[in-house]
């Protein structure tokens, strides 16, 4: 087959029908542009919300859960080994929330090649006092540098700086808590721990995660301040948070650490199962809208090619009579649709990018997301690759049937018909 000749014929046929060609190509352009901007936007949104979750949830969290002892005495007994034992009214055993051997565990984890970073934490429920009222809340005692590298906590601090926590007896309180108790930076807040210890902490900042339930109860202090509050030693910690190189390995590694350290371990995927569903649905929506738009564009191409074939019956007959085979004719028409698809698609990518830039500068101000000023967009090149692939595949499929029809045109019938 002579490719250049086939190309040349296809080009000339398109030129003769320039207006319809442009209309068909614009259909593809529109479909691809919409697809690109929609997917970029949806993914930008996903990233934003993912970030929100990721900054709250470690890839793996190690902790001690209050629960019954797994191997009850009767199970250990030789005598009842072959029996089926029913035990009722088991009570959980409080082993304390502290992680034993915490320093050793952290050392081991830090040496693990799959682990990016480790951040210990002390979490304890407390009561905040404001005048005569008591509000229950939570104090997170964090290792400042590690927490910042894992969760970018500073992004969520509305007033003050994370480094202010390095002062003794300082605290950053949640925005909801601050409003409720009418506190601001510089004030002193009184706290009672579960064991009844009383303490006064200086407010150095106000944090806002963007989720009201959390902002209403959470406050943050340094791990040493928290240990002091609880009257515990400096190796006391309730949580070890891990960030991994590859988040996909979290479930498997959580399982591994669970048995290795005899601790409870929860992975990111399990903790955010519900959230993942939302992400997936947004992705599905954007792709299906894109595909629908392209199918519509595909019908446009199908129509124009069909029309072109009826118009060019004589040309097809003469090409065949002078020695072009059915497959040559088929390629001419496939090429026609490919030209429409590729030009339309490339323009679609271009306009998709332009639309994305426009959406990107539209202000999007929400109280719950202090660091976000405009609509989030994700400019992943893979969307553009998918877009152009979609365009080409759709136009090829739309062009295939007309092309096959053209290849089967019987020249004798046309020549006789005159």
């Amino acid at each position, binding site marked *: 087959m*002579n490719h250049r*000749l086939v190309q040349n*014929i296809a080009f*000339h*046929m398109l*030129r*003769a029908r320039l207006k319809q060609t442009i209309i068909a190509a614009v259909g593809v352009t529109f479909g691809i542009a919409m697809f690109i901007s929609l997917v970029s936007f949806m993914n930008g949104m996903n990233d934003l919300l993912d970030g929100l979750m990721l900054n709250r949830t470690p890839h793996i969290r190690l902790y001690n859960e209050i629960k019954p002892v797994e191997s009850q005495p009767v199970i250990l007994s030789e005598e009842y080994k072959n029996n089926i034992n029913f035990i009722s009214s088991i009570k959980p055993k409080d082993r304390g929330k502290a992680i034993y051997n915490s320093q050793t565990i952290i050392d081991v984890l830090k040496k693990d090649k799959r682990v990016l970073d480790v951040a210990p934490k002390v979490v304890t429920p407390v009561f905040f006092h404001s005048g005569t009222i008591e509000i229950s809340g939570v104090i997170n005692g964090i290792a400042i540098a590690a927490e910042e590298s894992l969760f970018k906590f500073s992004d969520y601090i509305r007033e003050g700086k994370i480094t202010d926590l390095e002062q003794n007896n300082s605290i950053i309180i949640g925005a909801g808590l601050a409003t409720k108790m009418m506190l601001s930076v510089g004030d002193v807040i009184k706290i009672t721990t579960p064991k009844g210890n009383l303490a006064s902490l200086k407010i150095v900042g106000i944090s806002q995660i963007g989720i009201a339930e959390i902002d209403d109860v959470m406050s943050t202090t340094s791990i040493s301040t928290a240990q002091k509050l609880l009257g515990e030693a400096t190796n006391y910690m309730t949580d070890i948070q891990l960030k991994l190189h590859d988040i996909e390995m979290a479930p498997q590694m959580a399982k591994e650490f669970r048995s290795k350290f005899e601790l409870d371990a929860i992975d990111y995927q399990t903790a955010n199962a519900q959230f993942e569903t939302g992400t997936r649905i947004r992705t599905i929506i954007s792709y299906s809208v894109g595909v629908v738009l392209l199918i519509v564009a595909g019908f446009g191409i199908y129509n124009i090619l069909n029309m072109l074939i009826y118009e060019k019956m*004589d*040309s097809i*007959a*003469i*090409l*065949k*009579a*002078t*020695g*072009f*085979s*059915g*497959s*040559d004719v088929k390629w001419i028409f496939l090429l026609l649709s490919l030209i429409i698809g590729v030009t339309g698609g490339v323009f679609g990518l271009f306009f998709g990018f332009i639309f994305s830039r426009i959406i990107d500068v539209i202000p999007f101000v929400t109280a719950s997301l202090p660091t976000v000023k405009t609509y989030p967009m994700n400019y992943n090149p893979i969307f553009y690759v998918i877009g152009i692939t979609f365009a080409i595949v759709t136009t090829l499929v739309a062009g295939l049937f007309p092309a096959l029809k053209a290849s089967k045109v*019987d*020249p*004798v019938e046309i*020549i*006789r018909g*005159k």
Partner: protein
Amino acid sequence: MSNKVLETIGLTKYFYEPSKFKVLDNISMSIDHGEFVSVVGKSGCGKSTLLYLLSTMDTDYEGKILIHEEDVTGKKDVDLARIRNENIGFVFQFHYLLSEYNALKNVMLPGLKLGKLSEEELEHQAMEYLKTLGMHDQALKRPRQLSGGQKQRVAIARALINNPLIIMGDEPTGNLDKKNSDMVFDIFKQLAQEHNQTILVVTHDVEFASKTNRIITMEDGMIIS
């Protein structure tokens, strides 16, 4: 090696619509190299049908067709297309030029498809043929800017471009006035005499036919002389 360019053995064809009937009945004939043959017969006797079979465009028949001693019966579409491209030149009653291209490019098209000569060589060759047919000054015109006779001459040049074994025409002068059909006849005759070109022409024009080397007369799907 014999001199036969085209041969049919027991060629039979049926049409099934609206009812089954035999258009061509056991036709056996052959055409030698350099012959100028005309086919005549009453309207509806099957002349065009025969020509379409010989041209390899219609493959629905019984019997055998040999082009240059090679049996083309039952060959694949691609192979038949190549045989047509290389060995057969067509001139129809209606000119059938591609409206997207100018006269010159129309003439070059089968040559470009064959791909034996470079584009420049082909262009030169096409120009030569157009010159022989007195059309070189019209070479860059589009088909719709040409008269009927001029279009027919472009079609003849196109039929010649690949130096085919045989040129076939189905009433090539049927649509032309006396002056133009005389000119087309003269061109054919000149090709036959000076270039030893084999030509097979279906015609109603008795005067035209009488001037050819050999007349094949058909009646009801059979050759009677």
